């Protein structure tokens, strides 16, 4: 009757505890559990922010607490919630989708997870050790130097991010080797499901981006602990160097957070449209273009730094270019739906919600790439609105789509569709209520990262609306948690293939056996399971 078993089975049949498991599915579940837990924590921190900002000159929290809250909220959501959730689904699903018994390096896989988690724990330990970091999630120097941040918060930030990042890097090595070398017979790289494609591209992004962050963290550590001068203007160093290194990581990071979610909806939309994905090659290829470009746009976070018009113009152009491959994806998803027979399940609702909301965030992103507009609204709530439209409206909705889609595979039970609809519509309403008004707040002059604002600014009413939206969003998340827990215990039994789906993970039992497949499958097309079910209408590619 317990919903969550206390042990995991090994292929040989014996049981091992969660602490010692090296099974990719169990590790996937661990990652997802970590992500969900930190998402709740990060969400509660966000609620604290919103509560304080609901009215002008409120005194709910002191400025230090507020500054810690948004710093830790940003780091938590990005590195401890979203990335683990995406990596978790990849861990669970990629081997199943390519017909492999496990990942390439199962033991290393466990190490990745534990490093990621320990990184998070180290970061949160700072609260007990005298104060969390309070310098913002990108911790600009020299504010993060010892002279201005004498506490230990930033040191925990450095350590936590470095350890977490090491885990993520090792995980990316593992996933890329798995995808490159462990596909089942017949699964050419041009036939892998798009989620697998995007996981591969994401892994490459991780491998190129995270080491730059590690390098920056090491330099900051040298500055703080060995009195170095990397980012210390008084000692000849340059504050901007930190920004270059951080955003060389930070920008690819945002695509690391969106590509796998795009992969998820690229699985969901065809299945619930009853059609193959439209323009497979273009959806896959555009990811490569995005990955390539994303290493050349970082300074769009630094337009107001004073790099000079030439630099700004170049980075503006590259940033705009990214809109093109992203648009290709959007159009192909819609073209997939056209002519289909759409089953508007909760998973499909979230996938469609992703497209609808992500476009808003994408378009505001393009407006930020326009240098003069950015100079007007950078570091304001307009940016906060942009980032939540892409990260919540995009990534999180994509993750929810993936969750409703794959939960039955992972647990053997369906999530409740009735609660799912409540979850979707409350999220949709709460989300837009929270973040739409922030565009205006930013445009009329409300900077981000302020613990309060004067009543005379007139920002009160829109902030109140935003806070009400956040409360609705919180209710939506509670509905989701209730759905998870209830369905885990007593959800409808799913069967192997509840959605009449296309890809290999649905050809095995739900949940899959320790060895994944009784015999390693062989495939002849992009929709192996469809081919098996409809031999008369096999895919040609």
């Amino acid at each position, binding site marked *: 009757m317990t919903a969550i078993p206390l042990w995991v089975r090994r292929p040989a049949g014996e049981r091992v505890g969660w602490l010692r498991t090296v099974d990719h599915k169990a590790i996937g579940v661990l990652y997802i559990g970590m992500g969900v837990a930190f998402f709740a924590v990060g969400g509660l921190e966000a609620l604290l922010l919103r509560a304080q900002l609901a009215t002008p000159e409120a005194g709910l929290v002191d*400025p230090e607490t507020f500054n810690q809250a948004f710093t830790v909220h940003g780091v938590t959501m990005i590195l401890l919630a979203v990335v683990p959730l995406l990596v978790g689904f990849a861990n669970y699903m990629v081997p199943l989708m390519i017909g492999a018994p496990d990942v390439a390096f199962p033991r290393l896989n466990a190490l990745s997870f534990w490093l990621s988690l320990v990184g998070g724990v180290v970061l949160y330990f700072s609260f007990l050790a005298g104060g969390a970091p309070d310098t913002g999630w990108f911790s600009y120097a020299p504010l993060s130097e010892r002279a201005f941040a004498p506490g230990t918060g930033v040191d925990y930030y450095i350590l936590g991010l470095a350890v977490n990042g090491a885990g993520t890097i090792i995980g990316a090595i593992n996933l890329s080797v798995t995808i490159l070398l462990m596909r089942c017979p017949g699964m050419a790289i041009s036939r892998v499901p798009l989620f697998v494609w995007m996981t591969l591209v994401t892994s490459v992004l991780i491998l190129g981006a995270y080491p730059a962050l590690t390098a920056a963290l090491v330099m900051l550590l040298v500055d703080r602990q060995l009195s170095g001068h990397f980012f210390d203007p008084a000692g000849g160093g340059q*504050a901007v160097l930190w920004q270059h290194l951080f955003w060389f990581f930070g920008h690819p990071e945002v695509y690391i957070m969106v590509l796998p979610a795009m992969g998820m909806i690229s699985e969901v939309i065809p299945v619930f449209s009853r059609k193959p994905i439209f*323009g497979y090659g273009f959806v896959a290829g555009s990811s490569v273009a995005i990955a390539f470009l994303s290493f050349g746009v970082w300074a769009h976070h630094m337009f107001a730094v004073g790099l000079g018009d030439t630099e700004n113009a170049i980075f503006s152009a590259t940033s705009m270019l990214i809109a093109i491959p992203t648009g290709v994806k959007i159009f192909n998803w819609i073209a997939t739906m056209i002519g289909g027979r*759409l089953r508007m399940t909760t998973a499909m609702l979230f996938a469609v919600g992703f497209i609808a909301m992500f476009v808003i965030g994408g378009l505001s992103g393009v407006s930020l790439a326009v240098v003069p*507009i950015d100079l007007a609204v950078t570091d304001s709530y307009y940016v906060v609105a942009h980032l939540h439209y892409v990260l919540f409206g995009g990534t999180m909705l994509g993750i929810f789509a993936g969750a409703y889609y794959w939960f039955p595979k992972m647990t053997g039970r369906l999530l409740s569709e009735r609660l799912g609809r409540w979850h979707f519509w409350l999220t949709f309403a709460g989300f837009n209520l929270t973040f739409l008004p922030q565009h205006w707040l930013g445009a009329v002059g409300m*900077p981000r990262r302020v613990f309060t604002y004067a009543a005379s600014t007139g920002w009160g009413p829109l902030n109140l609306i935003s806070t009400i939206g956040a409360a609705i969003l919180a209710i939506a998340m509670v509905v989701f948690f209730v759905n998870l827990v209830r369905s885990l215990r007593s959800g409808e039994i799913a069967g192997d293939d509840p959605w009449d789906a296309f890809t290999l993970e649905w050809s095995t039992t739900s949940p899959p056996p320790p060895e994944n497949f009784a015999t390693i499958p062989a495939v002849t097309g992009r929709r192996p399971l469809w081919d098996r079910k409809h031999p008369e209408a096999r895919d040609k590619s």
Partner: protein
Amino acid sequence: MRPPADAIGTLALIVGVIASLIFIGVEAALVYAIWRYRASRNLAGQPATFERNRRLEIAWTAAPALILAAVFVLTLGTMAEINGAGVAPAMRIAATGHQWWWEFGYGGTKTANELHVPVNTPIDLDLTSVDVIHSFWVPELGPKMDMLPGTTNHLRVLARRAGSYEGQCAEFCGVEHAWMRIRVVAQSQAEFDSWLAAQAVPAVTQGGDGERVFFLSNICVNCHTVRGTAAAGTAGPDLTHVASRATIGAGVLPNDVARMRAWLADPQRYKPGSLMPRVPLSDADLDALAAYLGALK
């Protein structure tokens, strides 16, 4: 020249219209697809099987590319314009960020938190910082620009209407970032000139009780300058004409003698974390001090 804010406004309008059209187009296509092809409507029909169309792909790659090329050209034009487009500034003002207040320098004359400019005059601000990164932002004046320690950035401003403008530091700079507000006062050239002349005059030494407290145990004078007296500290704002400013503490309190007294009694209460410490003073000393500072017009 056109005020930078207007140039940006025009550009934002154009980009906004383009974005709205794209937004409407994409959402409409999405809604149409859901409405037209939902299973309950399409009961008997089999789903189509088309899965690629090269021409369509080229079209929806090329169309955004063309739109963006146009936006980029406009961007370049506006970038040049807001930098001054070759028009030389009529004057330069030094603006320096401090944790959590502003210093403005007109030649040798220093003042704090309140920037006075002549109206309708192109001005370049020379921006720098003495500690962490700040960012100068007065939304109605247009773009913002970061202030970095060790470097000087320039920002062209042009105030079109007389009156006051509100702004604030836009780069997170530590605990009191929220209360690092700016007031810009744009005045006619004549008013501005007389304001500047008044600011340049050293304070008239009153020699009263307040001044004695101000110099007491070298506390206040350690951090503050009052030109015309021996006080020459630089850690805090220049107080030579502090009473001429509209607010205390970069916007936390309106400036009058009562509020001044309250601020001096405990700055940390109004601006917790501020680098001005609470100096324990008797009630009588506080009264005298507030009166003294209140007279520094």
